[in-house]
């Protein structure tokens, strides 16, 4: 199981990094999403992988339990990355619609006085 989770994190990260190096915004956004999946799985695994154990301590018996904190962290991270993905999609859409071009680089000619500075 450790091998499976580790290679999943590695694969997601590799694919994400490949995609964020692309030149158009859509693959880049997909890449950031993949990276956030990778980090979520990774965070989940930082509490060590335990199956069939509740995230609750038992003071009456010495039964196995899983660390609840990474699950709480993952929950926060999922919410934040979801919100961030929504924001980047909207900003990228705004850029695409106003520039008629979805390349992520930009040319740098100085702004003219008439333009909103």
């Amino acid at each position, binding site marked *: 199981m450790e091998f499976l989770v580790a290679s999943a994190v590695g694969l997601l990260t590799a694919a994400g990094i490949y995609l964020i190096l692309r030149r158009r915004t859509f693959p880049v956004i997909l890449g950031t999403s993949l*990276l956030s999946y990778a980090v979520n799985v990774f*965070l989940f695994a930082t509490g060590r992988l335990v199956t069939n154990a509740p995230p609750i301590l038992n003071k009456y018996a010495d039964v196995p339990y899983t660390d609840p904190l990474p699950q*709480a962290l993952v*929950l926060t*991270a999922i*919410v*934040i990355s979801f919100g961030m993905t929504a924001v980047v999609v909207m900003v990228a859409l*705004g850029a695409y619609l106003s520039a008629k071009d979805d390349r992520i680089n930009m040319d740098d000619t100085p702004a003219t006085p008439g333009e909103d500075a």
Partner: protein
Amino acid sequence: MNHLLIAPIVLPALVAPFIIMTLRFHIDLQRIFSIASNVLLVAIALALAVQAADGTVQVYELGDWQAPFGIVLVLDRLSAMMVLLTTLLALAVNLYAVGSNWDARGQNFHPLYQFQLMGIIGAFLTGDAFNLFVFFEVLLIASYGLMIHAGGTRRFQAGVQYVVYNLLGSTLFLFALGTIYSVTGTLNMADLALRVAELPVEDSALIRVGAVMLLLVFAIKASLLPLHFWLPASYAHAPAPVAALFAIMTKVGAYAILRMFTLVFGPDVAVVSGLVGDWLLPAALLTVAVGAIGVLGAREIGRLMSFGAITSVGTLLTAIALFTPEATAAALYYTVHSTLAAAALFLVADMVRERQGGAISARPVMAQSGLISVLFFVAAIATAGMPPLSGFLGKLLILDAARTSALSVWIWAVILASSLVTIMGFARAGTLIFWKSHGLSTDDTQTTPEGDADAAPSEEDQNAAPVTPRPAALPFVALFALLAGLVALTVFAGPMSRYTTATAQDLFAPQAYIETVLANRDRPVTDAPYETTAEHKADDHSADSHGDDTATEESH
């Protein structure tokens, strides 16, 4: 517990939704509430600074959960100083935004501004590494909105770059925190300090990876070379008041480096020895050099200012990377200076851009050319580090502190040479913009709608203006306030450097901080409905610390 500690986070968190929900269509009321909240924040920050000035460390336990389990806010000299700096800067910038009408050029400037303040202040106050991540996200998501305020093709394109770059930074932050948690089992900074110090040296690979990833994240925020690529385009294309406020954002990164790498991964912690200073110092020097070259080569005034900001961040990080109390004291003094100077530069740049566009070239003489050129001159002197103003003192302190370093020759050479190049860059830009324009024929004088020459107030008016601000005077009031801050920093350099020296000594002797934060770690839960036993909590705290993270963070 002193509830004043959480007030600077709660206040903007309440004002922002209030403005969105009830004042959406009333820009005047929005301005009143936003500035009133900002003034209150300054008052709170002053009160906190007074309380922290004697070196006491105060802890605020959110939800009354004791330290390693719950989230804490910690107020010490460093965080009090940064919070006060943030609120003062924000007030001046807010006045500029109102006066120059920037806030009315798009929707929801003031709510986003308040959320931005909440995130920045929270990042300075928190004593918990994961909570630091959450406050980074709060300030980032507000900054995404502010960055593209008022729209425009270029601004959206720069915004995409900015958002993507920072998303990657956030992902890296989570990877770093996960790695550190998997090794230490805690994310409370004080608890981390104890646990990292106890780690065996031969088993340090993971914690070293975590520390380096954390450093990379903060270096992205601070725009350290080679992670600075997001800054020039973002700052040059952001609305001017936002760029001025962003002057404190790079300092958030520098603050986080200073905090984490003195408290947790300090210079004498064995497992991470030789990891940070050795890499940070050359990178910081490169940042200074590249920033200076950028200043010299800039063809657009926003870029000129952005590279000026990169130079000052590089200088600041050079001082931090020495990791000695003297250098850190110098770095803190320079932090205050460079924040005010960079903000002033961005506001001057905006005044020029409003009147004649952003290109650094000879254009017809703009309205209020004389006054603006004086302001440009003063701000440029401050940034370049020329004698009369605090930039000179800051650089002097840094150079003096660098004498003991092994790389002192390099530090002296790079900082002095880059100061010269920066002066040349600013002189070239100022000459082209303000002097060459007088040589042009004046028949094609164009004034943009904002640059109304007849409203040009005399200098006495601007100094008396805060009572009844006229629309065209308020931006100058804000700018004069920032420059007055620089002058005050120069005049009161003695008390200020005593304060920063004391702060630096606190940072390099963090026992008081750690003991205060963890004072209640074995406090039994008194009013629990069930018989929660004290001995049970004591032996499992590594496994279930921070159980209430989500509860607190989701409320943000």
